[in-house]
């Protein structure tokens, strides 16, 4: 019955064995299994389900959730163009088009010989060195026409990725401004030794004094989170480092993991010491899988140095180790409860809260989820004390913040500032001129117009997880918002009605406007959808999805209004577009083959 050749079972057995046949490793197993043939044929899913004693439908459910898993044939070369607005501003559409033409294929389709498929993907976190792409999961930045020509040739020659020029895969840190964290030169284990000397309670007290707040977006007090997990019943407790970094325009966690991995892992171990946790996970977004070998090497070294494993630094009863779990293309998995579901090998659907992860997280155990930067910062606190840390920054925002700067400026990259720095100062430092707007905090953040550039980066003013995208006077803020709406529609997990349908509807309205078919009535509907998304969504993805539209509608309304037809109402059904197939079949595209659905050129 099967038309596909079955995947060699011995290879699948090896993968299952490596993951101890644990159903919690299902996502990891699927990621590895896909490497065998570039996709996951139906018999492979059946085989894995049987081996793991899981219902097949559940395995299919998981495989269908993640963008980087394919349940239909994909090319031996799978090319995904990063499609953040910053990639678009650097001309990714033209490059994608060029590659498609050279390889004779259409975006989103597989070439007839099964050699290559080309598609777009959400922001890959290379905004400071874009346009970027992933080829079979490997990141390549700084694309230009020359590079695209070479890549087309390499694919045509079917040259394995390992033989591609190594400079393609070189990724820069682009650190432009250092402060406390990026200047820290710590001997691995020094922060831990200091925290152990203070005792668990003493170390937690130091954390309390530091006023450190989470750098992942919500700004929750880290010490409060840690002590809740410490006091919650249930063992063994779990520390998770959230390295999903899916917010468009954010890439500071990539740099920390590339060059400061010891600080991140030491921070996780410091959290384990405070909480009494013994199990740790780094949840690494699939886009950063190129970091995996070097991160595993750091973990191995830290184990050898007695900084992980049993009796850390000879402390009786301090046992903690870290495993790395890969994501597979799902922004929602950055939301902490969806992340935990994903860690358990499930679809990344956000849970009902309460209960919160600190009492009922991974496998029902108390679980701390912290951002990469938050954890790295705890090293500073262990070394210099909580009070010293609290003395920097602003009243409600202690310490420094890493900003990922991209878009229209001379020097994109990573900038570390004490909290309280003004937007204007940042713009000056990175060499931005004629700035029209700045999107702070990524697609779900806030769009600031010129009159707001004296505002400050701080939880009490402009909070941010770190993204800082700059748009100069030549940019169209409607198109910026539209690209973010597409992002949210693509990334909605689909669990709740308002976000699943609302983001798709919003995308439809924005596209209708972009096509020149928008009317006043559409702006009212957009308004109404914005409010429903904000109010009724199950998680932060849905409630943030309308932010770019709300902000730009308020601050850059002419960008919308000049797209409207003069009518109050224009139907969503586009008669002319419906004739496209007929035109293609008859090879006609003359004016007579088009319907005029509204009067053009009316003032």
């Amino acid at each position, binding site marked *: 019955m099967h038309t596909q050749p079955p995947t060699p079972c011995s290879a699948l057995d090896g993968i299952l064995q490596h993951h101890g046949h644990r159903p919690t490793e299902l996502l990891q197993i699927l990621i590895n299994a896909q490497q065998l043939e570039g996709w996951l044929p139906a018999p492979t899913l059946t085989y894995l389900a049987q081996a793991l004693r899981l219902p097949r439908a559940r395995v299919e*459910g998981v495989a269908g959730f993640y963008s980087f898993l394919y349940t239909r044939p994909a090319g031996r070369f799978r090319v995904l163009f990063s499609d953040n607005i910053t990639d678009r501003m650097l001309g990714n559409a033209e490059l994608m088009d060029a590659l498609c033409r050279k390889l004779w294929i259409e975006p989103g389709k597989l070439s007839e010989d099964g050699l290559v498929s080309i598609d777009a993907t959400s922001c890959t976190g290379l905004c400071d060195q874009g346009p970027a792409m992933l080829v079979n999961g490997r990141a390549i930045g700084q694309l230009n026409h020359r590079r695209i020509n070479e890549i087309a040739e390499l694919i045509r020659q079917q040259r394995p990725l390992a033989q591609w020029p190594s400079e393609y895969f070189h990724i820069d840190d682009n650190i432009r401004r250092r402060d406390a964290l990026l200047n820290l030169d710590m001997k691995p284990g020094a922060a831990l030794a200091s925290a152990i000397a203070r005792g668990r309670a003493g170390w937690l007290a130091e954390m309390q004094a530091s006023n450190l707040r989470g750098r992942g977006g919500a700004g929750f007090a880290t010490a409060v989170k840690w002590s809740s997990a410490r006091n919650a019943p249930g063992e063994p407790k779990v520390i998770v480092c959230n390295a999903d970094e899916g917010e468009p325009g954010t890439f500071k966690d990539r740099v920390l993991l590339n060059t400061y991995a010891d600080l991140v892992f030491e921070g996780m171990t410091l959290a384990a010491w405070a909480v009494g946790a013994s199990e740790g996970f780094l949840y690494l977004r699939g886009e950063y899988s190129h970091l995996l070998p070097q991160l595993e090497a750091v973990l191995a070294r830290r184990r050898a140095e007695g900084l992980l494993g049993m009796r850390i630094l000879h402390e009786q009863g301090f046992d903690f180790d870290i495993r790395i779990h890969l994501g597979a293309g799902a922004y929602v998995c950055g939301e902490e409860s969806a992340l935990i579901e994903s860690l358990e090998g499930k679809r990344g659907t956000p849970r009902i809260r309460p209960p919160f992860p600190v009492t009922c997280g991974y496998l029902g155990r108390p679980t701390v989820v912290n951002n990469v930067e938050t954890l790295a910062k705890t090293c500073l606190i262990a070394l210099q004390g909580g009070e010293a840390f609290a003395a920097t920054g602003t009243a409600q925002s202690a310490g420094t913040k890493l900003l990922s700067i991209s878009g229209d400026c001379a020097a994109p990259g990573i900038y570390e500032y004490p909290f309280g720095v003004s937007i204007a100062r940042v713009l000056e430092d990175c060499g931005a001129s004629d700035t029209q707007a700045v999107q702070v905090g990524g697609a779900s953040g806030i769009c600031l117009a010129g009159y707001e550039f004296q505002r400050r980066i701080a939880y009490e003013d402009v909070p941010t997880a770190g993204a800082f995208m700059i748009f100069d006077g030549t940019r169209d803020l409607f198109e910026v918002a539209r690209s973010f709406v597409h992002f949210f529609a693509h990334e909605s997990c689909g*669990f709740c009605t308002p976000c699943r349908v609302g983001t798709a509807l919003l995308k439809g309205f924005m596209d209708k406007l972009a096509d020149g078919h928008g009317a006043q009535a559409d702006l009212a509907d957009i308004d109404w959808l914005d409010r429903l998304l904000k109010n009724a969504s199950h998680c932060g993805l849905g409630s943030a999805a309308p932010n770019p539209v709300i902000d730009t509608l308020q601050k850059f309304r002419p960008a919308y209004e000049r797209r409207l037809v003069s009518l109050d109402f224009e139907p*969503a059904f586009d008669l002319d577009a419906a004739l496209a197939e007929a035109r293609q079949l008859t090879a006609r595209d003359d004016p007579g083959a088009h319907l005029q659905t509204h009067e053009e050129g009316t003032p």
Partner: protein
Amino acid sequence: MSKQFLLDGQPVPFEDGQSILEAARKAGHYIPSLCWHKDFPAHGSCKLCIVKAAGRHVSACATPAKEGWEVESNTPEMNGERRGLLQMLFVEGNHFCPSCEKSGNCELQALGYEYEMLTSRFRHFYPDRPVDASHPDVLLDFNRCIFCELCVRASRDVDGKSVFALTGRGINKHLVVNAESGRLADTDFSKDDLAAHICPVGVILHKGPGFAVPIGERTYDTASIRSQKLKEEES
């Protein structure tokens, strides 16, 4: 003395751990629901039960009641949002109620009437969702699925079979059955499973004589979903 909160100004008693929705229904006040079922833990996906508690929007089915809370539910604002959510569910699938065997017994349709949904308001998605008629006793018409996962939960947690699961993401999310062929006939599903009787809309339909009870005389034809649900609560 038991604890209480105010629902649209009226006191509602509750026990610790009880959700706003459960407490309200027990006290004879209707808050609508689609994905909630008294025999299962809250799911929280449809959002029909949305209320404003202490000024914040929450799902009544998934939010434990709190002493002294002021909860708004039967207000023009909340009912308007519910109407919008219903419109979303209607345009997302293919719902041709007049030709649907579930018409009159369908909770989605009944809620459409209850919340005075007169138009579908938004553009229709017209998704392509082929029907599965492979099983001898039961037909699956995926066109009407609202993703409440009641069949998923009933089959997994009560029938012990896991016949159903969701796959895909976002607007492309869809229901699949537990077989490599994708056909219900190739699963161990039976018409006597709880999952065969739990769908609130017209997806999981029993074959055999159709329209045995004429349209016009069905559950929600004779009385509103509001009064039916409150009556269920009493019995």
